[in-house]
């Protein structure tokens, strides 16, 4: 792996970390609950991107399954929390 790709990977991971900190500020201080749910969904997505970039870094396929699972859990948790905010219960 050349210096070009390793610096690009470090830059991308740093961008994701900084973006996660910014989203975390909104998650902690968000005025209402739906802001926090959206921030949590975005944090899940940043985790997914980190997994994919680590898969490139280590030249491995194994990170891909983790990323797919994170996408699945992100959808399930966000949909359940949105349903809870809308109706007051998840399964009626």
């Amino acid at each position, binding site marked *: 792996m050349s210096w070009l790709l390793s610096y690009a990977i470090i830059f991308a991971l740093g961008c994701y970390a900084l973006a996660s900190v910014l989203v975390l500020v909104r998650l902690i201080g968000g005025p209402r609950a*739906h802001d926090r749910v959206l921030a949590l969904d975005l944090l899940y997505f940043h985790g997914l*991107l980190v997994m994919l970039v680590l898969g490139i870094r280590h030249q491995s*396929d194994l990170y891909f399954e983790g990323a797919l699972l994170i996408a699945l859990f992100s959808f399930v948790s966000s949909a359940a929390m949105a349903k809870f905010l809308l109706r007051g219960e998840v399964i009626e």
Partner: protein
Amino acid sequence: MNPQVPLWVEAVVAVLLVLSGVFVLLSALGFLRLPDFFLRMHPPALAYTFGSWCVTLAAVVYLSAVEERPTLHPLLIIVMLCITVPVTTLLLARAALFRRRTSGVDDAPPSLTPPRDG
């Protein structure tokens, strides 16, 4: 396995990764700065589309070059996100609209369907 990939492949992958990092950072900045929830729902779409497309294409190009065969399975992530992200966004927007209408503050957008008379 071919750990030595050509330099132009690494250049393409590096450009895609840098682009995705910039897009994700911009979306997080917009998500933090915008003043209203319905405005704040827009910047994550930047990350969900451009961020995921760039990283997934980078993974496809790089893993194909490493394994010396077409490696297309990271595209499944894009298919997954294309299905799930609109559903999540729609549910959250409905929840936010409902909560704003029931919170007593009269700043919610009006209903699109006209009220029935009678």
